[in-house]
């Protein structure tokens, strides 16, 4: 067994107790909340018989361990039960929503790279210059705007005032998705761009001083080629790694709390 396979196997095995722990704690937590789910669903004026009937239907009248093992048993076979809200299987709801989520994240990633790389290059060309200050200033401002605020502003500007993009929806077909998902992806991307720009800029400045860049210049390579082939190429992996690995999770949390503890480039965490 090679190293990678062993690593993956170890991680999968170690995830099992964590999963059991998480499901156990969350099941118990739900039962700590006072009240009866059937009564909550049916309302105050439902009769006791109605509540008892729904209790039985939902299976919440069984003892706690039985309920938990029933859940584990179903989950192991890929069945996560039925959503009370929609009456559909939870699995089918996840499958239905997954493409939209993947589209959103992928599209946002593409937009953020398209925006970040030129901006970072612009800023790193002359550190301390007006372009550098402008890019960094705008980055700090953008960092302070949560995606939901950016989203509403973008909708107002590009969907309501100028009807360029639809304000909501997923659209049909690839073209429809590209059009409909542009605004949500852009607002999500805007929260990631400042981080990528700042870390990429810092990394480019570091690589700029490296010996191989000096040699490239000494060989008489044009500045453009030096920047793209020698500086950007070497700065991209470390410069984008922390931002990209952290960003989807952080964006999902609506960028309410920004923690950059895992980020190796401290300069990007200001």
């Amino acid at each position, binding site marked *: 067994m090679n190293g990678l396979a062993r690593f993956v196997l170890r991680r999968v095995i170690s995830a099992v107790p964590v999963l059991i722990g998480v499901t156990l704690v969350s099941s118990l937590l739900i039962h700590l*909340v*006072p*009240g*009866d*789910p059937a*009564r*909550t*669903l*049916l*309302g*105050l*004026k*439902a*009769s006791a018989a*109605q509540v008892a*009937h*729904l209790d039985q*239907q939902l299976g919440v009248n069984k003892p706690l361990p039985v309920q938990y093992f029933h859940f584990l048993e179903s989950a192991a076979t890929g069945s996560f039960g039925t959503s009370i*809200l*929609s*009456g*559909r299987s939870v699995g089918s*709801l996840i499958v*239905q*929503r997954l493409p939209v989520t993947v589209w959103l994240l992928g599209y946002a990633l593409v937009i953020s790279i398209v925006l970040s790389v030129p901006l970072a290059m612009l800023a790193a060309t002359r550190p301390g210059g007006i372009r550098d200050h402008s890019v960094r200033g705008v980055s700090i401002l953008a960092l302070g705007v949560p995606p939901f605020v950016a989203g*509403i502003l973008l*909708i*107002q500007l590009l*969907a*309501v005032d100028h*009807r360029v993009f*639809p*304000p*909501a*929806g*997923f659209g049909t077909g690839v073209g429809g998705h590209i059009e409909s998902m542009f605004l949500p992806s852009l607002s999500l991307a805007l929260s990631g761009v400042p981080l990528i720009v700042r870390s990429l800029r810092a990394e480019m400045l570091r690589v700029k001083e490296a010996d191989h860049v000096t040699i490239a210049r000494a060989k008489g390579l044009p500045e453009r080629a030096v920047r793209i082939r020698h500086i950007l190429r070497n700065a991209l992996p470390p410069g984008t790694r922390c931002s990209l690995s952290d960003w989807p999770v952080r964006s999902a949390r609506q960028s309410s709390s920004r923690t950059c503890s895992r980020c190796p480039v401290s300069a990007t965490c200001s």
Partner: protein
Amino acid sequence: MTYQSKTVGRALLSGAALALCTGLAACGGTASGGTTHSGGTLTIGQVASPDTLDAPNSQSAEAAQVLSLITDTLYQLNPADGGQTLVPGLATGYSLSNGNRTWTFHLRHGVRFSDGQPMTSTDVKFSLLNAKKGAAQGPVDGAIATVTTPDPYDVSITTTRPDAALLSTVSYYSNGVIPHNFAGETANAFWKRPIGTGPFAFANWDYGVSLTLTRNRHYWQSGLPHLSSVVFKPVAEDASRIAGLRAGTLDAIESPPLSEVPALKQDAGVQIMVVPGAQDDSLYINASSGPLSNLTVRRAISLAINRRQIAQGLLFGVGLPASAPLPLNEPLFGPRPAVTQTDTARAKQLLASTPYAHGFSMTLITAAGNALASSIGQVLQQELAPLHIRLTVAPTDQSAAIADLQKGSYQAMFVPDTSGQIDPDVEAVVTSQNEPAELKATLNFPQMSKLALQAEQEFDKITRERLYERYLQLYVQQYDPIPVIYEPQVVAVSNRVKNFRFVQGGYVLTAATVSGR
């Protein structure tokens, strides 16, 4: 006694009670004018997707809205008066016999389902008996004992005892008429693509994305509907629904936030339709012990509440000050009493005559997440301070709050309440039967309960109205619950749409048209 909750109070404590409750309420509005022309797609932005289209098992307001376009009922709410009365639907009339226990409905001839099959009494019988079996809405039909079909165009419903509310019951959306035996399908398969005699036929449902209905070519009102299709889209975010309306991707949106209504009213392209009093928000009081068991104390609290200020300040003038703990869409309750005028001096005087002249502390439970309830709680805190009543607002998880109410472990609770039908029977009898024991302990309860049962069996409209008026008086006089405000149901419709109407439980779109964007 089989009367059950029906839809009343299903979401009693929820901030989104209207969104969850199956009643849109009476009144409503109409956008009319312009020339009538066929075609066009009307897109409506809903707060959520329907839970299911299986009518007897559905619980959401969205399901009721969609199903009321697909199926028709024997009688229906009159769109002309905003749903204040019932008018013939699939039935042309009815006759009573057997000591008012048997209702024979005479069916309209020439009615076809959207699959082209003719509708007869066998279909009506099947529909009613199937609806009665429904877990969620079945209790609505608790009074129905047997259904027989004397001939293809007559259907006789016999009730367990005389029930004056049956006409309202058969008008309820869960009693919409579907083909006998689910047109040969299984129940499950049928409700995935339900068939009815309504103006629109089910076309497609991409769950969470859109639900499309198309014109029913066999609709019994010839030449109608005008629209070629109606599309429902779930848009949970308030801001996105409003943006969709303004951007023209949605033609109508339900429940815009009340804070946005004044701005929308200014918008030239948008018409606002308000159903006043679709929901009443009241303070449920635990009158079993402590200062609040004293009627004079409850009256003093009621006098200290400035309802107009709350309606104006917190509901942006779209809400109304409440004078009774009942929604406004039940015309038989008669005119509501006048709104209690705020009189803090008199409230102080009253309180001084009780052993609580120096005040007391009380806790008001609100549903966590119901922002309006919390804001009202804060206003009440200030308004009760001059009476030396120290009010603490305790936002509580909804299921915990319901449990508290059931157990009677609360002092005061903010409870929103809506009603799914216009007949007060549901509200009155249900209040008598299924209220928590501690609510039943109130002063006037035995008398109210008697009146409710009497009114249920009274077929003379005027006598019935009097009984309900008396019921209402008793309810109001006990100051438990203390009414605070009526919350409206609001729909914002683009000016492109003409003849858009809505009544309790759904939209009436038979005459609606939409012009190009």
